[in-house]
């Protein structure tokens, strides 16, 4: 650096080495003890305690309930169910409004506008029927649930509930051979798996960090909720009487979330006994004081930081996806569209695992963003089954005013309750989106772990769907 030879550096290291032997092992402990004593002394000088604090007692009472052995898990379950129920019930009306505005009115308006300016069909088709409609669909389907879910989640976070969840789940993670802080990175994964992967930096041991990275995908990310919520309401909610439909759908989504947590433990356990062998390391987790959330501030930051960023990503990816859908539907080989070729070749595999070729193709198109699975599915279903009266032509993402209309369409496309259930399962258990995969590659710097993180959930997804389909066909006989 400053032109010196290595000699003084070497002698410093040599002396340090010799002294280290002389002083022995107790050095770290004695220095730490000195530090703590000094810190205690200073703290004693500068702080004064006046009377008994009210809030500490309240904190203790809350902690006794929220982290108790008996009530910890039930409260966690109830809070989760409540958040989903509010999201499902609350999102219906604004979703319909947005859909009317952007799709029912916006789309014909743009069509007539492009007609008025004499725009040729091969320009207005991909742009208005493909790109615009895909984006409009994503906004009307995703914005309302996200605008409700994220603030609720953020309120819980600001209140200080997340570390309590980590505390509750710690013993399970330890049993699985993983790090207790994985509960926190998993919680981040519910927002976005890519963010969850980055947050695994809080885990010290590389082994446990890899486990957390490989299993983060089992935390259902926001891109997959619209799928879960919609499918749950049109296939499972309808099984219950109308006044219970919302609650039953919410419970179905909670069940999928819990299944994801179960797979997190199972896969962590398997990894820590095979390719990532080792024991769980100890750590100390601070339970921060409960803080009254500042509602308005939380609304603002969760809207800006989470809702809009996530929505923007969805819109950005929906645009090219809409274009691709329009293209594969309108480019024909031998009189049959490209989409039809692919769907036909995927159909046998899809039906074997209780899904269908359209769903598999949709998941291929949606690799950049899970958010666009549903619009892609609907469009392909209309196209492939030649259902009339909906939509306005090949490759047009169309408008559907209500979940009931979506249900009619899917039933016409040959969907059954099994297809719905398996789609919910497959939405939980499939490869992470390309952003997440790239993040995994950047954090681990390894192609091997990146591939593995895509293959593990994919293999599990195919296996689970296959078994559910076989059992279903034996029991229900369809």
């Amino acid at each position, binding site marked *: *650096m*400053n032109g*010196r030879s290595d000699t*003084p*550096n070497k*002698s*410093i*290291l040599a*002396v*340090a080495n010799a*002294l*280290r032997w*002389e*002083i022995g092992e107790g*050095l*770290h402990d*004695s*220095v730490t003890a*000195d*530090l*703590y004593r*000094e*810190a205690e002394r*200073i*703290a*004693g*000088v500068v*702080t*004064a*305690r006046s*009377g008994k*604090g009210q*809030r*500490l007692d309240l904190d203790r009472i809350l902690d006794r309930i929220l982290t108790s052995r008996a009530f910890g898990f039930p409260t966690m379950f109830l809070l989760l169910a409540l958040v989903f129920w509010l999201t499902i019930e609350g999102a219906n009306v604004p979703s319909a409004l947005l859909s009317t505005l952007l799709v029912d009115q916006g789309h014909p308006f743009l069509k007539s506008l492009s007609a008025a300016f004499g725009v040729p069909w091969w320009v207005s088709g991909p742009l208005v029927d493909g790109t615009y409609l895909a984006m409009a669909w994503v906004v009307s389907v995703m914005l309302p649930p996200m605008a409700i879910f994220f603030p609720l989640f*953020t309120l819980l*976070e600001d209140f*200080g509930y*997340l*570390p309590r969840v*980590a505390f509750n789940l710690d013993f399970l993670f330890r049993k699985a051979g993983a790090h207790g*802080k994985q509960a*926190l990175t998993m919680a981040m994964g519910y927002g976005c798996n*890519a*963010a969850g992967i*980055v*947050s695994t*930096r*809080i*885990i010290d041991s590389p082994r446990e960090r890899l486990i957390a990275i490989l299993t983060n995908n089992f935390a259902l990310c926001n891109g997959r909720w619209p799928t879960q919520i919609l499918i749950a309401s049109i296939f499972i909610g309808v099984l219950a009487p109308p006044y219970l439909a919302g609650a039953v759908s919410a419970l179905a989504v909670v069940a999928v979330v819990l299944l994801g947590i179960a797979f997190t433990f199972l896969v962590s356990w398997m990894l820590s006994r095979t390719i990532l062998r080792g024991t769980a390391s100890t750590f100390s*987790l*601070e339970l*921060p004081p409960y*803080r009254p959330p*500042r509602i308005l501030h939380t609304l*603002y*930051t*969760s809207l800006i*930081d*989470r809702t809009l960023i996530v929505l923007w990503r969805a819109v950005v990816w929906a645009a090219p996806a809409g274009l691709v859908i329009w293209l594969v539907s309108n480019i024909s080989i031998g009189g049959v569209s490209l989409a039809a070729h692919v769907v036909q070749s995927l159909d046998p595999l899809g039906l074997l695992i209780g899904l269908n070729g359209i769903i598999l193709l949709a998941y291929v198109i949606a690799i950049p963003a899970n958010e666009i699975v549903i619009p892609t599915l609907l469009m392909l279903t209309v196209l492939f089954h030649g259902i009339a009266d909906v939509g306005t032509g090949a490759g047009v993402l169309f408008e559907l005013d209500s979940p009931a209309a979506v249900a009619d369409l899917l039933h016409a496309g040959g969907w059954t309750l099994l297809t719905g259930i398996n789609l919910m399962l497959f939405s939980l258990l499939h490869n992470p989106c390309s952003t997440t995969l790239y*993040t995994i590659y950047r954090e681990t710097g390894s192609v091997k772990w990146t591939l593995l993180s895509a293959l593990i959930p994919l293999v599990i997804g195919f296996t689970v769907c296959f078994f559910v389909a076989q059992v279903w066909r034996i029991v229900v006989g369809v």
Partner: protein
Amino acid sequence: MTRTEIEQCEICPANPNAKLLHLGAKIDGSDHIVALAGNPNVGKSTIFNQLTGLRQHTGNWPGKTVTRAEGAYVYDGKRYKVIDLPGTYSLLSTSTDEEIARDFILFGRPDVTVVVVDGTRIARNLNLVLQILDITDRLVVNVNLVDEAKRVGLSIDGRALARELGVPVVLTAARTGEGIPHLLHEIANLASGKVFTKPFRFVTTSKHVQRGVEQLSQLIQKAYPAIPNTRWIALRLLEGDQSIIDAIRHGELGLLATTGRRDEHVAVEGAGDERTQ
């Protein structure tokens, strides 16, 4: 109030905010670099938002910030770049987030380091403060969450703490913005050299260790006369800290040698990591 009255208030020297201009994420060309360090979950990100006008998401749990966030503000005509470091309990760097924080304070050499301290857990937080005091003397201790401390019946004597530590101490309740003007003022004083610190350096009780530190720090002093914190480096060497051993072996220790202003690039590339959403 009329419009002109408001304008006059904004430029009145008695209004501390008159000197402050949030720059958000516009971080180019700064005069001073300020690092925010502290234990996890003490409100560093909230302080960061208050200084820069950014609205980075804050959460009530340890480990929220795992990467560095950067922002900027102008105060009294000078541009400050603020770096929000991940929260750490110590500087022993056992995980990636701790390493990012330590490497930046060590090798990035910010003009001012602000250690944010949880007012309700002074004793535990002071461990880190004492460790950072051993590395740098350009330190402002910011006791945050004083509103929460008051609620649990704790009162904190900022002046006594400043006397004990030998560095400026500012009490804040960042969630409401209380004390932020004072913090801005102290940062500016330290950065411009208007204020000098006499940092408290803790001494180990073990005679063995004391002798070892003495001997080793003399050697380091001779090899690198400009390094201000030889005692700390000696102690880290005695503990067998691999990254310090590597720094000496590869000659990176020389980076610590110059005090005062250094090349902007060194500071910016300190821990080399951008924020990921």
